[in-house]
């Protein structure tokens, strides 16, 4: 009985560790590694082979590599390190941009094949028979069969699980964790905001792999054997089920799931006495029940028992000094000048009474800009002979454009003219087939999107691209460059390292929200907002990056005309402050009012350029628009 309880305790610890690893990798980072069980298996094999003596010692009844006979902590350390190292080749598969379920199948099949290879290649880890007689930790000093040792092992396993929990929570709750969650929600957008998605994915895999390896090491020290039967593909399904049932993106949920699924359904039932005449009935039904559990939970409660917590940063800091409305002008934040007296916090679209006044001012400002171009008229962004082919179709066919500093340049054209494609190539979201892109005098044609974003070239997207399961405030915070806690090391150093800066950044983000009149929505999930509000969030987020050049892809689409007008006013003001803006838009009246100069694209080529009033007089432009 004691043995039964201590065994469950160890399994609870081991499964909790593994589920936390998966929760970090899948729930937070969004990396679907269906080969997860391989990492636990590798940890167990390596820990076993490190603690076993050379395979000649026991009369050579089993064969395996290593056999270094290392004392206690080293097998566990080895298991962790190997789990992490093994993740590196996996990063190459998961890093590829392929459909989520295709990648999942690739990894699932990889797990099946690793199992097949280890089963058939005996010299590695003794083939199908597996490793046995693996020494327990410290078995020279203690008797592993004693009750005290068993209890001790169970407690150590739980403690290791708790330490793992603290570790993953520290990462998840940091700005680095925020970047991981942003990548999970939309990796293309995270990339366009300066996040190195490949590196984030790789580190997710390594962290999860190392944790899984550790779980294997802890397990093998207790059960003293490890064979291919112990890590069939179905075990991966069990772990995924546990994390989903517990609550995706919630580490406590992952631990709860570990106790509910693998421990309660897999291990606890192992000791139900077999049915006479059909000894396999219980184990078989156990798998059926796990299958049913997965379906029932995904149907009735797909968010899990403990859903991901909403991080109410604005509410948490609201009671503290420096957070009251009106105080943001003095906030020592990177955006203080931006929210300062030049513009003043201007609510958009909410205060209806001011609209008429705003409109008259707006027309005047736009006219003034058209008449007198800014003094600094040097080119900051330029593309030459840009070409993009899709399966032989030339969507963009030799486009050359130059964008001047501090100007609000418009790009118009009929559907399929290649406007969005040009924008995507400028930002680096889409590689160009040929041509050259110069930003701040440097050739950035080959640079990935996140590097261009870090240089100050930031884009928005035509389709809604908010990070759905981040709050509005978090969405804004994600875009801010050079955060102290936005790296693995920074995250590990803890809140003491990045907390003060975080406070300042929250101030500046709230100032931005105030300016656009969305302060009240700071703690709402961005995915829950209306279409127009989401567009605003996206523009605000792009502005938080303090871009030198802002590329907007139809920012007014689906937005109420009055709100669109107010957004236009804000953009004009940004240009006066020195930001360069390039805007793709369908609505000609917006071009009339705000943009100068305007490029007209048709069939992947530049048809004309110049002031909108002049373009309207050109016959070929009108024709392209009406006919196209």
């Amino acid at each position, binding site marked *: 009985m004691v043995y039964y309880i201590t065994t469950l305790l160890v399994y609870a610890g081991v499964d909790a560790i593994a589920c936390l690893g998966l929760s970090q990798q899948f729930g937070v980072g969004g990396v679907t590694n269906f080969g997860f069980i391989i990492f636990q298996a590798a940890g167990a094999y390596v820990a076993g082979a490190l603690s076993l003596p050379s395979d000649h010692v026991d009369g050579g009844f089993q064969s395996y590599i290593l056999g270094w006979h290392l004392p206690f902590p080293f097998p566990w350390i080895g298991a962790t390190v190997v789990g992490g190292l093994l993740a590196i080749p996996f990063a190459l598969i998961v890093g590829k941009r392929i459909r989520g379920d295709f990648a999942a199948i690739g990894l699932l099949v*990889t797990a099946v*094949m690793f199992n097949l290879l280890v089963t058939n290649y005996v010299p590695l880890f003794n083939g199908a028979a597996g490793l046995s007689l693996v020494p327990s930790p410290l078995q020279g000093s203690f008797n592993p069969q004693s009750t005290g040792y068993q209890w001790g092992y169970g407690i150590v396993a739980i403690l290791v699980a708790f330490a793992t929990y603290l570790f993953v929570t520290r990462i998840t709750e940091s700005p680095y964790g925020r970047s991981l969650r942003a990548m999970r929600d939309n990796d293309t957008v995270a990339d366009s905001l300066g996040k190195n998605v490949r590196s984030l994915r790789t580190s997710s895999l390594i962290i999860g792999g190392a944790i899984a390896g550790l779980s294997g090491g802890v397990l093998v020290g207790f059960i003293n054997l490890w064979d291919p039967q112990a890590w069939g593909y179905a075990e991966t399904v069990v772990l995924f089920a546990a994390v989903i049932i517990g609550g995706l993106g919630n580490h406590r949920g992952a631990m709860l799931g570990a106790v509910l699924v693998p421990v309660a359904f897999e291990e606890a039932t192992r000791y139900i006495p077999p049915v006479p005449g059909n000894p396999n009935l219980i184990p078989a039904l156990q798998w059926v029940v796990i299958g049913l559990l*997965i379906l029932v939970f995904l149907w009735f409660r797909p968010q899990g028992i403990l859903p991901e917590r909403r991080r109410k940063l604005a509410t948490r800091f609201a009671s503290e000094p420096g957070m009251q409305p009106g105080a943001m002008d003095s906030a020592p934040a990177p955006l203080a000048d931006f929210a300062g007296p030049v513009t003043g916090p201007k609510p958009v679209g909410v205060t209806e009474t001011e609209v008429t006044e705003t409109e008259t001012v707006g027309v005047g400002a736009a006219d003034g800009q058209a008449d007198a171009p800014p003094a600094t008229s040097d080119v900051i962004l330029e593309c030459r002979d840009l070409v993009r082919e899709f399966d032989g179709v030339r969507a963009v066919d030799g486009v050359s454009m130059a964008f001047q500093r501090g100007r609000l340049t418009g790009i118009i054209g009929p559907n399929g003219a290649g406007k969005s494609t040009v924008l995507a190539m400028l930002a680096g979201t889409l590689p160009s087939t040929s041509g050259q892109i110069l930003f701040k005098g440097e050739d950035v044609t080959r640079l990935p999107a996140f590097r261009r974003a870090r240089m100050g070239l930031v884009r928005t997207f035509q389709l809604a691209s908010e990070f759905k399961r981040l709050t509005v405030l978090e969405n804004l915070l994600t875009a801010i460059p050079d955060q102290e806690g936005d790296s693995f090391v920074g995250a590990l150093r803890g809140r003491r390292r990045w907390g003060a800066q975080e406070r300042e950044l929250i101030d500046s983000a709230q100032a931005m929200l105030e300016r656009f009149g969305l302060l009240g929505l700071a703690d709402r999930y961005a995915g829950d907002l209306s279409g127009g509000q989401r567009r605003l969030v996206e523009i605000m987020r792009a502005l938080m990056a303090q871009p030198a050049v802002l590329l907007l892809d139809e920012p007014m689409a689906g937005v109420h005309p009055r709100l669109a007008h107010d957004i236009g006013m804000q953009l004009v003001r940004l240009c006066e402050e020195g930001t360069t803006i390039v805007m793709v838009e369908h609505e000609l009246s917006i071009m009339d009012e705000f943009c100068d100069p305007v490029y007209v694209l048709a069939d992947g080529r530049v048809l004309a350029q110049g002031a909108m009033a002049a373009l309207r007089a050109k016959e070929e432009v009108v024709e392209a628009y009406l006919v196209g």
Partner: protein
Amino acid sequence: MSVFIASIGFGLVTAAVLALASVGFTLQFAVTNVLNLAYGGVMIVAAYAAYALNERGVNIWISAPAAILIGAVLSVLLNNLIYTPFGRRGTTPIAMVIVALGMTLILEFGTQALAGPTNVSYIMSQGATVKLGSIELTVVQLVIIGLSIVVMILVHGLIRYTRLGKAMRATAANRNLARNCGIRTDRVITVTWLISGALCGLAGLTFAMNSGTFGATSTDIFLVLILAAVFLGGPGEPYGAMLGALIIGLATEVSASIIVSDYKDVVAFVILLAMLTIRPTGLLGARA
């Protein structure tokens, strides 16, 4: 050399079974965009359905319709009661994979709970051995090859020359557009799953015949071969699946004769992984 040529014979048999399975799998993907990983589970349930009759003294060839029927009915139920409702709820593709794997556990271990853990085999004669040069095949194996060829021709005729086939292709290309053009897509999808399910049942039966003995989880590795064939030809492409099945069937058996038979499935795995990472649309596919 003769071993090499003999392996081509076995490769053709494997390819024949694989073609039945892969075409069914790829048709399901084509019309519903779901990777039905429970396919192997349905195959084995169908194989056991024929076994249940065979065990009671019914000739296996007379029991065959039971396998086909069970495969067809089970597949339709799977789609209409599980995949479609989950899909309507906006379940992500990843969660769908987990749903399919959960169904696999239910089907395979449910079968095991009923039938027991020991492997079984049909009571049947493999027939005389026919020699074609170095290739030696039993009559049953030749029948399987012939059956598969006939079914492939029927599938070709269905897709190419019937109204239903046209409706299937339209639904696969763009379901909403097809519906707006007056095609009853729900019915087309159900019929497609019925037909592909019948193929799945037939594949289960021939798989069980060809492998001699089988158990509830025997199709786990075979599913890897199916996936490899499907992705090689391009998911959703029936002709691609046929070609893929031929290549994978031959590649696994021929490599078994050259290297060691323990690792023959690794060839399929390498091909699958290469296709997934380099060209997930397959050799014949264009759809992403």
